Structure formats: C-alpha cells, structure tokens
C-alpha cells in the first residue's frame, strides 16, 4: 500500500517580474504549515498559485494527492474546482450579503457540501451573535472570523491563510489567536499559514517553510528551522530565541507552578498553565532570558537550571554574541562578547543555562499537535 499523499505537494516556477522569480518545491504534511519570509519573499504568490488565482509558468501542484495543476499533463483546474479554502489578508467578505449568507456562500453559490455544519463552525468561531449582521457593521476581528468560517464551510481539502492577522492591532490579534488554535485542533483540515510574524508561527505551526527571494531556504519542523544557525539572517528578524518542544509533567498548586519536561533530566518550572498533565506544547525561550554559568548556580532565585554544552557561537548585534547550548534541546542564550571570552565559551564547553521562570508567558506558548 502506498503511503498517504502529503497534504500539499508543490513544485512550481513563476516569473513575476524582471527581478523576482518564484521557484519553490516542497511538501507539507497535515497540521499547520507556516510559510514564513519577509515581504516580497513570494508567500502570497505561492498561495495564489495553490488556489488557482495565479498561474505558474511550469510545475505541478497536488493537494491530498489530487493534481490541481500540472503543466506537463496540461492540467489547470479553475479556482472554483480546486476545493482550496482561502482566507485573505483583507477578508473580502461580500458586503451586500449578511454574515449568514456569506458563511453559506460556498453552499448556495458554490454547491459545496461538506461534513461541517453551520452550527459547528459558529460554535468554533463564536459567530452566532453576528449571523444577521452585515459585514459593514463588524469589527476587524469579527470580519476575519467570518472569513475563516466562510472558507471552512466551503468544504476545503486544504485551508490557505494569508496573514489573516496582519490587518489587526495587537488586542484584536490576541482575540483571534485562540480561535485559530481551536481551528487547528478541531477542524482536521491541513492549513498553510502565511506570516511574517514569528510569534504567530510558533503558536500555530507545526512545520515551517522558510522563503527567501522566491526560493525555499528551508523546510522542516519549526523547532529545527528556528534553531538553525545558517538561517538566522532569515528567521532572526524577530527577537532571537529557540523553540523547544516540552510536555507538561505536573502542577504545583501551592506555589502555582507547572513543571515542563524537555527531557527527563531537563525540566523547567513556569507559572501555572491551564493545561492537562501530559499535554505536548512548544515554548519559545528568548535568548535574552537565558543566561549562562560555568558552575551550577546555588542560592540564586532562579528555578530553572539546565546542564548542557555549547554547540555554536554566533555574533549578534553590538557587544553581544548568541550561544547555542545543547541542554536536552538546543536553546539560545545572548551574552556579551566580554562574558563569552572571560568564560572561555567554545563549542563543547560544559555550561549551565539559567532560564527565568517568568520568561515563559502565554504568548510564547504553542500547542503541539
């Protein structure tokens, strides 16, 4: 028996202008795949090609094994036949229709019949109070929720989300993120999530495709891509840090702390999290929240000390240097060059990484599939 087809397999070329040519070849599995890169890296063009709104010069696109485009076989399904859900950055709700008619557009206009019910989607995205309103009377966050619901109800085989939070301010973003997390857990639809915001990517994505100048610079689990030194110029625009997969080991109710397990030897204690024991999640440890010590610190107020060894050093801006430490998982620490020299930090050197418990907040958490 054949292995199940990947959620997405794309290998395309498209010349957009004199200077920009997109040439991307990658596969994405189930769950959430982040398309990450700076503006102009070709993220939106790529998802438009998957959706059938932009025609590649050559190549092949398949979703769940179904070929949508193949220049050699002369296959080019029109957008309406692709079953590719698209949540646009600017939502694009139909202004002359009520929210209900917008949500059900895929059914009455597109003749799509999916297993998902309107009630289910309304519960998932909390849309019930909005159903009879018109898009002009919705807030930015509500508009995006309706747009997500509309795409889901059109029975997509894959859901493309093109920076759905980019047009929202900070509080609105935080209003939507929990919905996206729920969507990921409950809908079962593979998602391609375009973003240039690392915070969102870490919270939502399982895999990451790093784009640079129209080309794929790296593909892989986001823990790997974010810790690769050679990709720092591309991933490092956000504040330097490492993404670490952990598991909830237990809660200490008296001290309101939760213990997270990186490996059986490497544990972190963080402020109490509302997650069940055994839950898998990803945390982001910012480099500036991790300090290094040659001896195990005693009598200090920090709870989290991880024994490890220096793997690599990478110059950072100004007087700093980022040190990649193997402490059960690779984590970054930002220290001054002066300290690094005084401590004699070099690959292989045994060190203790000290992590501030308060460094792990809600925003740096992502539920791992």
């Amino acid at each position, binding site marked *: 028996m054949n292995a199940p087809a990947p959620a997405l397999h794309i290998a395309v070329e498209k010349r957009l202008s004199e200077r920009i040519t997109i040439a991307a070849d990658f596969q994405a599995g189930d769950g959430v795949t982040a398309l990450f890169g700076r503006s102009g890296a070709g993220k939106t063009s790529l998802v438009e090609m998957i959706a059938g709104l932009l025609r590649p010069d050559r190549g092949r696109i398949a979703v769940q094994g179904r070929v949508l485009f193949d220049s050699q076989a002369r296959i080019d399904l029109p*957008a309406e036949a692709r079953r590719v*859900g698209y949540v646009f950055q600017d939502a694009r709700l139909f202004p002359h229709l009520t929210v209900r008619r917008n949500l059900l557009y895929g059914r009455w206009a597109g003749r799509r019949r999916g297993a998902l019910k309107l009630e289910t989607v309304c519960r998932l995205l909390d849309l019930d109070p909005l159903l009879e309103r*018109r898009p002009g009377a919705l807030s930015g966050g509500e508009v995006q929720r309706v747009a997500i619901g509309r795409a889901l109800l*059109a029975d997509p085989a894959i859901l493309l989300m093109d920076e759905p939070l980019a047009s929202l301010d900070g509080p609105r973003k935080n209003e939507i993120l929990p919905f996206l997390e729920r969507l990921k857990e409950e809908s079962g639809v593979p998602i391609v999530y375009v973003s240039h915001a690392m915070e969102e990517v870490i919270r939502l994505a399982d895999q990451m495709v790093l784009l640079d100048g129209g080309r794929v610079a790296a593909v892989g689990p986001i823990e790997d891509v974010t810790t690769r030194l050679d990709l720092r110029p591309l991933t490092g625009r956000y504040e330097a840090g490492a993404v670490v997969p952990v598991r909830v080991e237990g809660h200490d109710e008296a001290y309101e702390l939760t213990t997270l397990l990186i490996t059986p030897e490497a544990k972190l204690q963080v402020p109490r999290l509302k997650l069940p024991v055994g839950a898998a999640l990803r945390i982001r440890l910012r480099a500036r929240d991790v300090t290094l010590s040659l001896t195990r610190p005693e009598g200090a107020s920090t709870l989290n000390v991880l024994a490890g060894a220096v793997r690599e050093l990478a110059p950072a801006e100004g007087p700093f240097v980022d040190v990649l430490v193997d402490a059960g998982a690779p984590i970054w620490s930002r220290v001054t060059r002066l300290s690094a020299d005084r401590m004699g930090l070099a690959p292989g050197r045994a060190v203790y990484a000290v992590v501030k418990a308060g460094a792990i907040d809600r925003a740096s958490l992502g539920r791992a599939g």
Partner: protein
Amino acid sequence: MGDWLTPVEWEALALSLKVASWSVAVSLPLALATAWALSRGRFPGRTLLNGVVHLPLILPPVVTGYLLLIAFGAQGPIGGVLQDVFGISVAFRWTGAVLAAAVMGFPLMVRAIRLSLDGVDRRMEAAARTLGAGPATVFATVTLPQLLPGMIAGAILSFAKGVGEFGATITFVANIPGETRTLSIAIYSFLQTPSGDAAAIRLTVIAVALSMAALVASELLARRASRRIKGFDA
C-alpha cells in the same frame, strides 16, 4: 380621469412612456455586454467600439436618425433582413421610435454601467471563485449586485432621454399620431398649429416634471443601492 389633458395629449404621453420603457428594456442587456467588453475586454478594436458607442452623443440627432433610416428602412440592409426574416418592421412604426430612443440613450447607459464596472472589486470575484462559484454564478451573485447602482442610474438616464428624444425619432420614423408622435414631437406639432399653445405648455410641464422625477429617482435609487452594497443597511 384626465380632464386636464385632451385624448391626443394623453396619447402622446402614453406613447412616450411606452417607447422609453421598451428602449430601456431592449438596450440594458446590450449596454451591459458593451460595458463589459469595454471595461474587461482586451481585443483589437476596443477603441473603435468605444468611439462608435459614443457617436450618438456627438453626432447631430438628425444625422443619427438619417443613418437609422438608411440602415433600417424597409429597403435598408438591416431593415430588409428584419422584415424578411423576422417580420419586424421598424420604419414609421413605434418600434422604430424605440430603436431611435435606444440608440440615443445607449452611450449614457454604457457610460454609467462601465463606470461602476471599473469600480467593481475584483478581489471579491476571486474570493467567490475559491468558494466554488463558477464565472456565471460569480457574475450573478457578486458582480451584478455591485453594478446595480450604475445600471439603475444608466437606465433612468436613458429612460429620460427616450421620453424626450426628438431629432433622431422624427427623422427616422416621422410624425405619425398614435404611432410615432411622442411627447417632444407632440409639443413641436402643437407649436405649429395656431391654437396649440395651451396644449404645448401642458405637455412641457409634464416633460419637465418627468425629467425631474427621473433625476431624483435615479439619485435616490443609486444611493440606496450603494449603501446596501457597502453593507451598512439590512
């Protein structure tokens, strides 16, 4: 009813309304197609088409009427075919008045529709396609509603033009009471008769009122439609 107008005057008014209504009904689909070709089409001769559509706006109406007479007269190249194949006669018939009104109002209608077509949000159309709607459905459910204000405005402008059309109509289908004597032509005729002043004035008042009503209605309808489209009204 109708004591304030003589039967002859009523006849002229009713005929004008009939001619203008038919002219709008016939030219609306054509104007939509033409506006579509001008706004979305990429074909050689687009500029030429644009020019031809606008000709009736610039040509002397008498010239337009005379050209219609040559083409659509009983012996004309198009008129002959219409007569032989479809049994439709337009020469010196009220149908000819409809044709003249439609031609004269056509540029107004095309312009109004094309303006709103240029303003249609094509990103909405792309969104509709990703939701499974084919080109025809996208047009009916997304594009057309956005075109509505422009179509209403264009239709009413063309209607008002049709009610008042004079030059092309009288040249093409002459002045036949009950058949082609529309409002404007009736006013002209009354002015030619010694005792026709009172009737001419009554019809003139009606013409002014009709035009004003059309203008106000087009304004109101277009405003309402555009509010609906922008999603503020239920």
